[in-house]
């Protein structure tokens, strides 16, 4: 308990300090400015980061017990040691290159304010109950937040809690203090700290959340406050807010939807929200504001579901528990909802909508991020600080019922220790990383830091790999996130070819295989998908059988939570061309890079806390990376 209170104190102190900072921009004159940072001719390094992290300014994170604020979050991401809310020393084995703190705009700082408000001034009996629970220790605090989320999902929030005037004042003061803190930790060339927030759009319990990330510094971003989602069920208001920001400040901002897997089919609809065929204007609007989607994070993975991709033996990573219903478990899931939730299907739907309207609303790149609510951006299996403070490292966490949808079948072990974003940028600055996001030159991993390159062109051959193939990739082709150049004279002639290169995480597990996932639409307008194994380890021993590469094997010793790199390969590279290419068919291609099996966080917990886990608990898995697709448009 002492830890909780004393770290709360540290967090408050940090905010108090930052709030009184005078003019941080003037004082930054000595620090290198973005313009002074050297930029590569084309991206040479992948920059690792987390675009989705909550601190004690988030209404639920504080309620779940987190007492670490933005300053601790930034220090931790940069590789410094901090003390977690529950009192453990926490440090990343490897620092991140960048971080976006994305606290919920709805009720920003709200639980903290409710907990710290003089009790005598709280009139609403429900709020009084929450106030008491929040102050009664971690268990009560978590109870309060479960009730708040529930009330939010059921539209039963006490009116005083939603009062716009109080909320606005509180938001402004927290936002300004937050900006000052982030500005103090943004160090161009060394560590990028983005300004951002989470727009927590819900339709009942259906998750339509977006993270909003600014390219700009505090001077511009202080002109606005985070935009709240309350009372709306479609993202239109957010897009208008983003347009307004860009117009008023000359800055740039993007939005990244996440947890489509908990939207009960609403995230990637074929129609406009509320029904009706999607218009080209709507599709264009969505694509312009939302160039990326978060494909994997702690609350599950949204690449592919076995119901949609029955022939893909690797579909369904991290869907257990999450596939039961929406975020709040207010509504269960039925099979026809999956198609609006998983990225592979969204890419396919995008093609069909483009066939019809000429615009692809789901031409999105993919990233992973944590969505951690502990201020600690951890995604390593052996160093996982949990989804929120209720499941920071402790003996029982793998089997705890978890707070969202407490009643039906979601448990601690369903959380994935995962989600980082790899960005191919020309420098480690806000501008360079943001611009790479806008052009979708990004990829997702479930935690490990594999280095993945993917270029598409018309004339790549096996010989290219012996030369400067990165230069070749950029000059003769397009990188991940791009569209095949058409009208270049070469387009449509022959078959597209791809430079594929994956390096294992230098401090992690070997690679099993690299796959190209292709989707396309046929003449009847129907979408299809196919997974090609294009390069794999031990090809001499592992011959294709029935069109598939046999399993790589398994070295995991669950009891010791270890594995060895006796199987797999440190690097897999090839030039692949599509044997089934039809120049008349719209298509996309993305890579899925599979690691060999490794222990998952419950296995490390079992070792650490001497647990006997039930057989259904996931103790090993093949971690993976997903790249943004490369798209092909047939000649008009």
């Amino acid at each position: 308990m002492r830890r909780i209170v004393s770290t709360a104190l540290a967090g408050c102190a940090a905010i108090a300090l930052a709030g009184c900072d005078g003019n941080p921009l003037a004082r930054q004159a000595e620090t290198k400015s973005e313009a002074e940072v050297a930029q590569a001719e084309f991206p040479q390094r992948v920059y690792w980061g987390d675009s989705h992290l909550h601190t004690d300014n988030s209404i639920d994170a504080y309620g779940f017990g987190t007492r670490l604020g933005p300053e601790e979050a930034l220090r931790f991401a940069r590789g410094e040691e901090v003390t977690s809310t529950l009192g453990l020393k926490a440090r990343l084995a490897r620092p991140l290159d960048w971080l976006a703190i994305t606290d919920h705009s709805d009720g920003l700082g709200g639980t903290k304010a409710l907990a710290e408000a003089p009790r005598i001034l709280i009139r609403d009996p429900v709020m009084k109950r929450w106030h008491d629970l929040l102050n009664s220790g971690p268990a009560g605090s978590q109870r309060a937040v479960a009730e708040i989320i529930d009330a939010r999902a059921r539209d039963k929030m006490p009116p005083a809690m939603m009062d716009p005037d109080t909320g606005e004042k509180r938001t402004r003061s927290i936002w300004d203090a937050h900006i000052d803190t982030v500005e103090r930790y943004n160090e161009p060339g060394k560590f990028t700290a983005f300004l951002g927030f989470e727009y927590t759009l819900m339709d009942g319990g259906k998750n339509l959340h977006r993270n909003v990330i600014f390219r700009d510094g505090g001077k511009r971003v202080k002109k606005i406050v985070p935009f709240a989602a309350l009372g709306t069920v479609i993202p239109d208001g957010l897009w208008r807010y983003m347009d307004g920001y860009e117009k008023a400040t000359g800055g740039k901002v993007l939005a990244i939807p996440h947890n489509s897997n908990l939207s009960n089919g609403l995230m990637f609809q074929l129609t406009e929200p509320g029904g009706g065929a999607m218009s080209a204007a709507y599709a264009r609007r969505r694509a312009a504001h939302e160039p990326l989607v978060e494909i994997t994070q702690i609350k599950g993975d949204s690449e592919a579901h076995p119901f949609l991709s029955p022939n893909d033996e690797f579909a369904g990573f991290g869907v257990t528990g999450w596939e039961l219903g929406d975020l709040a478990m207010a509504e269960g899931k039925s099979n026809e909802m999956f198609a609006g939730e998983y990225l592979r299907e969204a890419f396919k739907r995008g093609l069909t909508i483009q066939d019809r309207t000429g615009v692809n609303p789901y031409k999105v790149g993919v990233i992973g991020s944590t969505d951690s609510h502990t201020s600690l951006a951890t995604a390593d299996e052996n160093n996982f600080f949990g989804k929120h403070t209720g499941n920071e490292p402790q003996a029982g966490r793998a089997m705890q019922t978890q707070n969202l949808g407490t009643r039906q079948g979601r448990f601690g072990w369903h959380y994935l220790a995962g989600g980082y974003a790899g960005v191919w940028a020309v420098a480690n600055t806000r501008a360079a990383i943001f611009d790479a996001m806008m052009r979708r030159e990004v990829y997702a991993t479930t935690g490990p830091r594999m280095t993945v390159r993917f270029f598409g062109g018309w004339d790549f051959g096996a010989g290219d790999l012996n030369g400067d193939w990165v230069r070749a990739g950029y000059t003769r082709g397009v990188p991940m996130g791009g569209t095949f150049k058409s009208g270049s004279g070469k387009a449509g002639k022959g078959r597209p070819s791809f430079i594929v290169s994956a390096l294992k995480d230098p401090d992690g597990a070997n690679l099993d295989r690299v796959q190209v996932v292709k989707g396309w639409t046929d003449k009847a307008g129907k979408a299809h998908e196919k997974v090609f194994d294009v390069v794999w380890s031990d090809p001499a021993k592992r011959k294709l059988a029935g069109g598939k590469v046999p399993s790589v094997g398994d070295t995991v010793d669950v009891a010791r939570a270890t594995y060895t790199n006796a199987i797999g390969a440190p690097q897999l590279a090839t030039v692949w061309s599509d044997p089934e290419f039809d120049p008349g068919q719209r298509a996309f291609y993305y890579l899925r890079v599979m690691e060999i099996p490794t222990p998952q966080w419950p296995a490390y917990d079992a070792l650490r806390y001497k647990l006997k886990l039930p057989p259904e608990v996931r103790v090993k898995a093949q971690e993976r990376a997903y790249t943004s697709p490369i798209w092909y448009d047939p000649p008009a």
Partner: protein
Amino acid sequence: MTFREAAARVLREPLVHFLVAGALVFALFGDNGAPQDRRIAIDSAQIGRLSAEFAQTFRRPPTRAERDALIANAVRDEVYYREALRLGLDRDDLVVRRRMRLKMEGFATTPVDLAAPSDTTLQGWLDRYPARFAGEPTYSFEQRFAGGPIALPASLDDAPTSEVAARFGEDFAAALPRLPLGQWTPVASGFGEHSVRLNARRPAPPPRLADIRQRVENDWRAAQARASSERAYRALRDSYTVTIER
């Protein structure tokens, strides 16, 4: 021993019992004679606040009867509050104790001197904790991978340790400080065996305040906040004699 256990033990101390009993006696009887403590005054400012809160909840001002009820309720609150204090009901209430502590800590930490620190202050801080701000050694090297072509740079110039570690792994980066200069030498990385020729190794340059002022200031500020809250606690703590029985 945690703070709570220590506190629990302190509360079992006979001396503490005596003091608490004394305080209770004082609370119950000692100030009975003080007339101002038996007076409850509700002024117009407070009535204004009560009405405003009502209006915030119900989106209309209270009627006269409702306002009278609010006032009666405020008096009731106050009477119970004072009587509860007299009975010491706040003492065994965990929620009350935590709230009181948070408030005290809030008082203790807010008024830190926040004036922008001078270069002298920060240079002093940097000199005091050089290890915290030490830069990284850099390396220039060429490498060949035993397993054939690999998607790694064949050479790096003046790359800091962290970049080498991010690209080649921790073991590889850890081997570079001991490597002979100018000779092809086997080095293992996370990928396998390499042959490496180290061409230059530069120790971390001494950190210059001008280059890392913001970082030094961040660290200084965080330390000031911690020190200030610790000082505030110490000032109170030092007026107590605490005995802990083990």
